[in-house]
């Protein structure tokens, strides 16, 4: 076996050659390992016999462009995910249904530089894609509670304000804060305080819709963005959250710790910026705190007067 042939079969990437009719002429061992289709089975037959999903306008367009221009085509993982539907190998199976691939396609030339066939290189980038996905999650999440972080909230808030104004839809915001949280820390210790933060966040997270956005805004302060929601429904939700937290208790090293929350609600108005919307919810929250805690206050010009 020639040296190049040995390399062809032992490199840790997939190598395929197709003739101008898109019949397979070369199929390396890597492709066999991941597809279960041996070279003897596939060489000589159309690539579409074994991979009918490749028979798509996009793939054909790329083949044509390689054959006609001698162009290279790059199938990035980000846009295409994969060309060949292989199972992921290793421990990434739970994250991706298919092996994530970065593929390159280009021309092979014979005599007189005429293009006789197409080569395809297949690289397994599942591991990288897994890290990327993890990193992307970490950038938007609060490490302790798993809810979104403030940075993400601010981005979402800007985007939602713009979207809701453009389409004249209603958008509400709930700011909430755990009552006497300092006392929890002082009495039961910070680990217990962390437990309480986690269970409050989990409780609220399970009560809101998927399209809503719960973020940890500060220490024990959370903010919940409610797209397509008017102030009446936001108030009802806030009340439901209040009762839910009031009813639950967190187990900390054998002790049951109970907390309550105060909530402030505001709705996007014509002249609002993201900042003024936040500020009004915050003022309503302050009013809820000032008038006894464990309650919901909706910002209305008459009920909340700036000091």
């Amino acid at each position, binding site marked *: 076996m020639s040296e190049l042939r040995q390399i062809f079969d032992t490199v840790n990437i997939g190598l395929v050659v197709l003739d101008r009719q898109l019949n397979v002429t070369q199929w390396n061992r890597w492709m066999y390992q991941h597809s279960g289709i041996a070279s003897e089975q596939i060489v000589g037959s159309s690539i579409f016999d074994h991979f009918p999903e490749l028979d798509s306008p996009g793939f054909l367009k790329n083949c044509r*462009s390689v054959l006609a221009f*001698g162009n290279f085509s790059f199938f*990035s993982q980000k*846009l295409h*995910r994969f060309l060949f539907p292989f199972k992921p190998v290793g421990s990434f199976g739970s994250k991706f249904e298919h092996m994530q691939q970065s593929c390159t396609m*280009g021309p092979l030339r014979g005599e007189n530089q005429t293009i006789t066939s197409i080569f395809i290189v297949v690289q397994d980038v599942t591991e990288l894609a897994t890290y990327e996905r993890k990193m992307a999650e970490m950038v938007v999440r609060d490490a302790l509670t798993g809810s979104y972080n403030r940075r993400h909230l601010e981005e979402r808030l800007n985007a939602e304000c713009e979207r809701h104004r453009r389409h004249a839809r209603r958008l509400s915001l709930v700011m909430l804060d755990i009552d006497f949280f300092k006392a929890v820390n002082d009495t039961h210790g910070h680990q217990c305080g962390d437990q309480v933060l986690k269970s409050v966040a989990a409780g609220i997270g399970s009560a809101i819709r998927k399209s809503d956005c719960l973020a940890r805004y500060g220490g024990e302060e959370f903010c919940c963005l409610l797209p397509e929601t008017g102030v009446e429904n936001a108030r009802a939700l806030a009340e439901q959250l209040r009762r839910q937290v009031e009813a639950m208790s967190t187990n900390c090293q054998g002790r049951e710790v109970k907390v309550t929350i105060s909530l402030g609600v505001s709705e996007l108005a014509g002249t609002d910026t993201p900042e003024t919307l936040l500020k009004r919810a915050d003022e309503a929250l302050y009013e809820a705190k000032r008038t006894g805690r464990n309650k919901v206050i909706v910002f209305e010009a008459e009920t909340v007067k700036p000091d």
Partner: protein
Amino acid sequence: MTDDLTISEEEADILQEIMNIAFGKAAADLAEIINIMVNLSVPKIAMLQAADLHGYLMGEMDGSQGISVIEQGFWGEFRGSAFLIFQSGAGKELISMLGSDMESAFEAEAADVLERETLMEVGNILIGACVGKVTELLQDVVTYSPPRVIVENKADDVLADGLFDPTYMAIVLKTLFCFNERNVNGLLFLVASQESIAWLKRALCVFMEQYE
């Protein structure tokens, strides 16, 4: 042949003519083979030292605006890098062009990622078609490295430093792309080594001989 690596006026004219033919053919092929209707206008080409590119490009575009630069290396007798510059926002315009291919792409992916990837695909197609045709006319065959997007930024910052080897020659083609009736402005230029320029001069000479 001399060691003089400046391009004479006559040679520049020939190159201009080759670019015109190449871009016309590239557009026709793109339409016929991959169904992308693209108008590639090729106004005057300019030859300059890569070191002077920054000043030239600053004169061509608004430095305070964001740009996207796509770079792709090509390898043949003629070798170097092709750069395609779009004003930022072009990616969004182009996403719809690749339309059906992209629907399957995930909704979860951030819009800016999608935009970058789209720029790379479009860059690859355009650079491949243009460079491919030019080199074909000059009887060369090139292969390509994967395109990369040099991050979106203010033109001032991106072009200021280190992007090009200052001893290389640059062939600038200011081109207006018009895709499927969407106007997208782009600037294409090739940066090539001195060896390549020497080869280019010989190839231009050979090209002219067929008409003599």
